């Protein structure tokens, strides 16, 4: 039995500690966000946050995650109440098949959490590990910039209070 904190909820899961986190998220916890893309840590479709860092859940053994905070796409918002990045992806219509998008959003979230105002070059460099096959890159970059602007506006409002 492994205790896992996912999206601020503790879960007791029965799994071999070697099992990659991805299969626990999708199988045991029935979360759709993280996607199976390669199982090799090469494409980023399975990206989630572990203690705020973007990791490939397909190559992260669940046994290494005791006491650490896992956040998946579901942790950022819902279909009815999307989070800032999710809303930015909707506003920019930054998806075609959308299969890579969950991973894109999670990797971008790790960047914006650390640096809410990244430059275009910083965004591109940070997003480099994630692959998109539909060619939606330009919209993805725009969506990340849009979310960054929304976060900065929110911070200004906070500061102004």
């Amino acid at each position, binding site marked *: 039995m492994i205790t896992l904190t996912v999206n601020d909820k503790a879960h007791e899961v029965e*799994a*071999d500690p070697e*099992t*990659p986190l991805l*299969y626990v998220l*999708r*199988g045991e916890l*029935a*979360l*759709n*966000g993280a*996607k*199976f*893309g*390669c*199982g*090799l840590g*090469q*494409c980023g*479709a399975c990206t989630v946050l572990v203690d705020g860092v973007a990791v490939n859940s397909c190559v992260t053994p669940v046994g290494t995650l005791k006491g650490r905070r896992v956040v*998946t*796409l*579901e942790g*950022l*918002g*819902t*279909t*009815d109440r*999307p989070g800032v990045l*999710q809303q930015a*992806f*909707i506003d920019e*219509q930054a*998806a*075609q*098949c*959308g*299969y*890579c*998008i*969950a991973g894109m*959003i999670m990797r971008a979230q790790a960047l914006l959490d650390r640096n809410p105002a990244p430059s275009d070059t910083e*965004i*591109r*460099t940070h*997003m*480099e590990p*994630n*692959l*998109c*096959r*539909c*060619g*939606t*890159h*330009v*919209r993805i*970059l725009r969506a990340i910039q849009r979310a960054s602007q929304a976060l900065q506006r929110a911070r200004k409002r906070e500061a102004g209070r």
Partner: protein
Amino acid sequence: MRALKRSALKRSTLKRSMLKQSRPSRRGFLLGGGALIVSFSLPPRLGWAQEPTEQKLPGSLERNPKLDSWIRIDHRGTITVFTGKCELGQGIKTALIQVAAEELAVAPETIRLVTADTALTPNEGYTAGSHSMQDSGTAIRYAAAQARSLLIGAAAARLGIPHGRLKAQDGAVVTDDGRRLDYAALVKGELLHVTVDGQSHLTDPAHYRLIGTRAQRVDIPAKVSGGPAYVQDLRLPGMLHARVVRPPSYHATLLRVDVTAIAKMPGVRTVHRDGNYLAVIAEREYQAIAAMHALAAAAIWNETPTLPAPDEIFDWLASQPAQSVPVLTGSGGLSGSTKILEATYRRAYQMHASIGPSCAVAQFANGQLTVWTHSQGVFPLRAALAELVQLSSENVRCIQIDGSGCYGHNGADDAGADAALLAMALPGHPVRVQWMREQEHAWEPYGSAMITKVRASLGPDGRIVGWDYSVRSCTHATRAGPAGNLLPAWLIAHPKTPPPPRPLPLPEGGGHRNAAPLYSIPDARVAYELVPAMPLRVSALRSLGAYMNVFSIESFIDELARAAKADPVEFRLHHLDDPRAQAVIKMAAERFGWADYQRRQDHGRGFAFARYKNLAAYLALAAEVEVDRKQGHVRLKRAIATVDCGEAVNPDGIENQIEGGILQAASWTLRERVAFDRTRITSRNWNSYPILRFREIPDEVRVHVLNQSGTPFLGTGEAAQGPTAAAIANAIADATGARLRDIPLTLT
């Protein structure tokens, strides 16, 4: 200002409504998009033959002429629209809802759309060839317009007032004195059970509320928030997880395998062997993966080198016997010319390389096989699966659910076949098969290697006089329909043989798609040489032969323009009569700033144009590249495209498709080649088959849609592939003076 505000309001309403529309209920999702409407029953097909069909009906109506096979309205007024096409990430659901809602005079959120399902929807073949709007969009539009007019007619009869005093509005027929009859009250009996006559009055473009507006896609909210959106997300009660173990190479045979230890592994329900076909079924997904690895390690295969030498692949292709298909039958006449040019272009095998490997779920219960699949064609797949598992077609149902983007014939159908075989082996249980990355890379059918040869002559006036062109490739069409085209069918103990390849018919063609130049050339000969052999598995990759043919033609046009000392844009315009072709070229050149382009060190510009299939969307593209001569590296820096796809239903969806097409084609053109040795495919993951990444993405990609309101839909989704390749090659030639003719383009 008011108009602007109003349209903004409309857009936001549409956005909200589509958000709402996109939330499938759990039950709806499991049923593949919706519950059955039971208040309606199909009458026997007997009557159909007697109905008049002198005139060809528009779009897919020709094959499915009954109005209520497309649109049904139940007694509560719920409108359900049925399409035989699939959502592949191209946004077809949203565009079809826009079209139906426009003609039915309802808000888009009131429409429920059911996509490809052999039990529910019309048979529209494959979702391929940029046909969805032409086929399904047209059919739904005429069906919806006729439904509107039938509803108005019913209201007129009910109220005893002339049609002229009635109009359809917000799901009701309203009179000029304010009375209102809801559609629900009007759809009595068999009102919509009629043949669509194709004569309906379509909504006047001046009165469009939805067509031509930038609608937000109905499927995106779930896809960005982890809602159930993909076949991979399907979780049926009691579902088991399967993995297949493929042979290490195409023709390897299984010598022996001891499965005793594997059958005892945790969670393993069965180890399935049928000839060279190996699979495991387990309770949990990772248990299936562990068992798959063990099974792969236990299997001893006999392999033989059956592939051509990779560095001689084009010699192999050139020397193979081929079936010759004439495309244009001029003499190719090169007399009376002042200059003759010739060139040969080559393209390596390339793959679809979907981000999500193929997946399917199947269940065999009570004599009925149900397969949930991201196939592009559920009806042809049903036929293939029925043949494979020896059931009659009526006992097989295929339901399409979104998958990862496919860009043509990838592993989707094969995974459906895997799921079907394994569900038959373990009746009662839903069985989910997920391919591994290596399996998708190594076993999907690739886009064929190709060779084109062209010779053309210029007259003294700098115009093209003669043109002699040939294109040679393996087939571009090995889709299911026949079970022999399914990969698992080759591996089982009683294998099925693939039918011999045949050229896809013109005007669309396969390897010869877009082989005929659209330019006015007095004497042109064009031929396709189809090589029936296929040492590497091949089939339809987005745009088929058009990618290579347009690359070749548009590169060569650039070479001819240089030889004629003409500007490449002007040279194209001089050789084109079609005003729509001229318009996209002029607009792309203008938006790019072609006329006053400032040349910079290590930069170059290139132009290309094509009309997809010579009958669908027109697309012109101007590109700028940056070259790093030391590293031999080329980056597409700017791409400015103009597209005319006839009636543009969702301009944002079109822009998204074209932007994506440009970036995908840039990746093909600059990076991609399937690697193999004499025995095995060696491109088995993203390291051995690299694609474009974020740092290589252009600084600017812009697409302008030249909307032709009130004209037929022209297929768009594949229009950018060929022009992108040529524009890049032409820009490299402009930057470096080097003419690269082999894809992937490599500066040495």
